[in-house]
């Protein structure tokens, strides 16, 4: 038996709920239009044949089976994307933190080094990638000339499938300015008293970093990793430009150009979404790949947050 609710109380509750809804409505509208709608559409179109002209028709799981079993570029692109997520994100965070630590310790000339390390981040991605491809050209690039002069091996870099992803990682690490600034701000925010207390307790540099610095900046590290994973999942411009420039085959507009040169090693999932969706106009299979990206991003993020205690059951 439930106690009858007084009509006045009922009206008050309704009014309160409406007020809450009114305050939330900007977010609800934005969330619905820019997240729920695209997501629902993507799921819907992944089961349809749709070329952007004729009305969509239901094809069931055909697009899914094509992408997973018949589309030759999907698995190489997925492997490349995961490789970049693991290696590139790790190195970017380590280098960003390392450079941030160095610069906060420098007594003189810190402004110069801050600027020097931040500037590459401002370079347009296409120009920076082209510059790297020319610098690392195995035949004419200065890097291999220098390596050869001192008797070191001269890799094929962007022309060798084994070296193309490391070369892309070098490019990403070169543009570390964004993470460096974030880490510097976090490092400068660590209370000095904690270092002094640790020092009085006999803690050396490593222990001060391990037990004072790291716990204080761990939310920032987590932010850097999570945003890094999401950005790398969307990695498009640099591998596309590197592959096209290094292959030497620029191609006329619309001409068939090999994706992911050399040997599909620079192919990433976002390139496939564009190829399927906006070159082949097979929106169905493009949506399947987009959903794979979405699920992977969500899984990585949830895993990272949960493992590091940012997503506990109490939350």
């Amino acid at each position, binding site marked *: 038996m439930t106690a009858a609710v007084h009509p006045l109380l009922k009206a008050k509750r309704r009014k309160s709920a409406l007020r809450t809804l009114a305050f939330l409505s900007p977010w609800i509208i934005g969330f619905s239009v820019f997240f729920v709608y695209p997501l629902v*559409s993507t799921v819907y179109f992944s089961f349809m044949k749709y070329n952007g002209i004729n009305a969509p028709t239901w094809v069931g799981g*055909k697009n899914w089976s094509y992408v997973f079993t018949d589309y030759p570029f999907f698995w190489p692109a997925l492997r490349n994307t995961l490789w970049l997520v693991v290696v590139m994100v790790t190195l970017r965070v380590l280098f960003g933190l390392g450079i941030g630590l160095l610069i906060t310790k420098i007594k003189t000339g810190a402004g110069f080094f801050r600027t020097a390390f931040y500037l590459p981040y401002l370079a347009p991605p296409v120009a920076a990638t082209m510059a790297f491809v020319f610098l690392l050209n195995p035949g004419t690039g200065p890097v291999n000339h220098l390596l050869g002069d001192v008797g070191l091996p001269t890799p094929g870099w962007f022309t060798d499938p084994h070296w193309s992803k490391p070369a892309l990682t070098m490019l990403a690490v070169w543009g570390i300015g964004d993470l460096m600034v974030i880490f510097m701000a976090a490092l400068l925010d660590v209370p000095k008293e904690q270092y002094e207390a640790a020092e009085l307790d006999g803690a050396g540099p490593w222990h001060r970093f391990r037990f004072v610095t790291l716990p204080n900046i761990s939310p920032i590290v987590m932010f850097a990793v999570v945003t890094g994973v999401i950005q790398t999942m969307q990695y498009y411009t640099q591998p596309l430009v590197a592959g096209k420039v290094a292959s030497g085959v*620029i191609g006329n*507009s619309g001409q068939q150009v090999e994706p992911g040169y050399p040997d599909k090693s620079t192919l990433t999932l976002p390139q496939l979404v564009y190829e399927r969706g906006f070159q082949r106009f097979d929106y169905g299979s493009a949506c399947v790949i987009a959903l794979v990206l979405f699920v992977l991003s969500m899984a990585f993020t949830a895993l990272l947050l949960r493992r590091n205690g940012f997503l506990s059951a109490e939350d």
Partner: protein
Amino acid sequence: MSRLTKAAAAVAATAAISLLASACTGQSSGSANDDASKDVTITFWHGWTAPNELKAINDNVARFEKAHPNIHVKVQGNITDDKINQALRAGGSKAPDVVSSFTTDNVGQFCSSGSMADLAPFLAKDKIDPAATFPKPMLEYTQFDGKRCTLPLLGDAYGLYYNKKAFAAAGITAPPKTLSEFKADAVKLTKTKGDSYSQLGYMPNFHGYESTTTHLAAQWGVKYFDANGKSQVAKDPGFTAMFNWQQDMVKSLGGFGKLEKYRNTFGDEFGAKNPLQTGQVAMGIDGEWRLGMAKDAGMNDLGVAPFPVPDDQASTYGKGYLSGTIIGIANTSSKKNAAWELVKFMTTDTDAVVSFANAIHNVPSTLAALKSPKLDADPGFKTFLDIAQNPDSTTTPPSINGGAYQLTLQDFGYAYESGKSKNLSSGLQGVDTQVDKDIAQAK
């Protein structure tokens, strides 16, 4: 679930469903009931960017506007196929009425999707017989599955470029006509320097700019699809012969790794440091545009000839791979009749075709223009005109998913030449299987 949560979910679901419904209505196509004799402005998109090309196309448009004072043309250059495809779907007042593309690869997509208007009714209305107006290969690559949604707007023919000084120095008196002569000349013209080359006779690797699988396969007169539309590269002996020939060339000229390292020293294909223009390579396959580019780069020692043919097909010497620019009318256009007037002028008016061909050094795309006395008399250019008219010259056929089948074959070519794929026969069968799967997905 609280009332608030329910309300939020309801709002989100309503927004999602309503927007989804609005997105799924498809495109409506414009009809051809506009009056082309009234004052009208149409939009024309093309991909040319070089100053001489832009001048040529603008001059042609100006001639059209003079002949049709009521039709004004808004010209937009530097347009890629991706942009064209997206605009053909988007429609709207700013979308193009007439579009041209540099490649024939996407004709199958344009025609099968319905993004380009069927030109057959317009041709019939003006009593233009395509077969009597355009060369046969060009007619083939501008239609798909019996639907003619584009017309040829100049063409490209591929032939052999050779360095006359290098030939003279090696004692070679005439360009090779068969592939065995070609191999002997290429070896003779190759000069090694340390672990590389000071001059390479020919760059056989498939990344060597225009030495692609499709351009070379045309010399064997290959057929990509059978009567049922199934891929048949494993069955057509021409493909096997082409790959065997290419492998033999790679081995004879130093091996894949050494050649690939040398290839990385080449300048841009469309820049002044193209290896044919710098003398790094003595022979190469390329389109007729190289003539003008080489002259612009100060290279006047390049000779041209048809690309050699297999020894057992010596009688077909003179043929080559053909391609070209295409033009059509957007199906979303509400000014199709006016748009057709421009398309008709650009593709069938002999003076317009000849002057445009002369200006940008492309092959004219009508039978009348090919015979015109006003056509550029340069002997090098004449070689390409002959290749374009050779009955054995071929092109890559249009397909429902554009040039995806060419990409699959090309991809196998890269794997085979590098040694990643070792079995040619099973590799070509794999190409057939993949091409058929991709076409099934597109249907």
